[in-house]
């Protein structure tokens, strides 16, 4: 450090050399509870992203359903986070899924087969099928991301990305964004309570709720941005802007076969693109 001879704040009583060097805490970077948790964070991220892409690329109902089953439901259940993943991803997916299915069920243009009629509206079989396709895709994507989120510690992801050479600033942004999700949910509900206290509706019919939620978006996002900005002072005060590599205390393991898994998964994307372009596909 260059100024060892000078007094530093709260100098330790004895020089560092005389003390037994203390180890890293054993719990730091402790492997996760299941073999799925213990996968390298990048592997889990690759699985989530490839699952999402394939859910869209595969088309039809059977393909995305299989992806949903194999890459989301099965691992989630085996990992013991099934309920959590299903609940959260349905919560995430429902608004989009419901509106998309209603629109398609009743308003798919030129659909010949009528299922039933509801006043002036005509539900069609083609519309129902299309709606189902969309719902499965949306649920698969929401499920894949939720499974990743629930089974990956932020610190594991951040450390792993940085070890791979991603810039500390970028990893910091990724890390902040990921940690911010639950914080933003907390904040949104706090703001919602405040708005309700001021007479804004966040309960009741969907339309009234929409109108109640809109005023929350601004404060929530602004609050989060403000916080990042004010944090930069604290970061600079702790040397975060120093150029060059930071020291990392530990990093998640990354066995060779996981790299193979990642590349294989990524390769399924061009394969499916080619197959689909050739006109093949599951129903």
């Amino acid at each position, binding site marked *: 450090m260059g100024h060892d001879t000078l*007094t530093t*704040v709260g100098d330790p009583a004895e020089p560092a050399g005389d003390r037994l060097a203390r180890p*890293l805490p054993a719990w730091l970077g402790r492997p996760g509870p299941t073999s799925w948790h213990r996968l390298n964070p990048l592997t889990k991220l690759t699985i989530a992203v490839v699952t999402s892409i394939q859910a869209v690329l595969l088309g039809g109902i059977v393909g995305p359903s299989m992806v949903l089953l194999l890459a989301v439901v099965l691992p989630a259940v085996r990992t013991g986070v099934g309920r959590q993943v299903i609940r959260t991803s349905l919560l995430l997916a429902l608004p989009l899924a419901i509106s998309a299915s209603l629109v398609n069920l009743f308003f798919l243009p030129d659909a010949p087969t009528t299922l039933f009629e509801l006043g002036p509206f005509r539900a069609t079989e083609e519309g129902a099928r299309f709606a189902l396709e969309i719902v499965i895709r949306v649920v698969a994507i929401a499920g894949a991301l939720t499974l990743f989120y629930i089974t990956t510690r*932020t610190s594991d992801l951040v450390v792993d990305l940085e070890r791979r050479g991603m810039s500390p600033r970028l990893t910091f942004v990724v890390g902040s964004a990921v940690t911010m999700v639950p*914080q933003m949910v907390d904040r949104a509900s706090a703001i919602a309570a405040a708005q309700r206290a001021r007479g804004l509706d966040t309960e009741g019919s969907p339309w009234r709720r929409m109108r109640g939620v809109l005023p929350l978006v601004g404060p929530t996002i602004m609050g989060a941005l403000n916080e990042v900005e004010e944090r930069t002072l604290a970061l600079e*005060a*702790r*040397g975060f802007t*120093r150029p060059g590599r930071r020291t990392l205390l530990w990093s998640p393991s990354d066995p060779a076969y996981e790299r193979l898994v990642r590349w294989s998964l990524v390769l399924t994307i061009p394969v499916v693109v080619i197959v689909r372009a050739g006109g093949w596909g599951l129903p």
Partner: protein
Amino acid sequence: MIHLEGVGYRYAGAPRPSVLGLDLELRDGEVVGVVGAAEAGKTTLCLLVAGLAPRAIRGELRGTVRIDDEDVGPWPMHRLAEVVGSMSQDPSRQLSGVNGSVFEEVCFGPMNLGMPRAEIVDRAWWALDALRITDLAERDPARLSGGQMQLVALAGLLAIRPRHLVLDEPTAQLDPAGTRLVGDALQRLASDGASILIAEQKTDLLARIADRVVVLDEGRIAMEGLTDTVLADPSIETLGIPLPLMVVLRRAVADAGIDARVLDVVET
């Protein structure tokens, strides 16, 4: 030693300087308190000494800041961060927000500075010990009390082993229990010979830990001297600074015509 010579600072876009003509010496091993009404310039002074102004907050700097006779003007922030550790009043914003445990949070500064791993770990344990928060090591920093967060932030600074600490109202947003927690820790650091610049409206805390007190008024130094002298000066009340409890008591006792020695019991 940190030396401010004729230092003035105007924030970018501000019509006039926020502090002006500051001459100040912060000697090694000395605790200097800064008091003053709201907007008097306490935070600006702290940012200047820490080097965050103008490096992280844009503005126009007049005069020079020296550390051990070297003008630190050209120093980049990360170099200053090794010598001057600074924190502000908002507990949650002192923390990086990306570390899952207090231990990692305390390691954050030394990691940024690229220190060897074994040394970082050693320093982190030492800093946690010094503030008596070793038992928090595994906790999630975001789920601590305000007082605990401030101690973790302080530990994060200590782990860098800066020669000076700059603390901007470290207890301002804390409840009485948190204030006591942080105050006691600061008192221990002070008696161990730390060099601290601390802006603080709670003059009772300053009375306990500061060697000298600087009074700011509208961006200028209005008064400066030994803690007991300055904090007993009746004129500081007119500058919007609350008097320490002991000073108030002493005055009340004198007004009532009671022998001042009754207070010796209170003081001990």
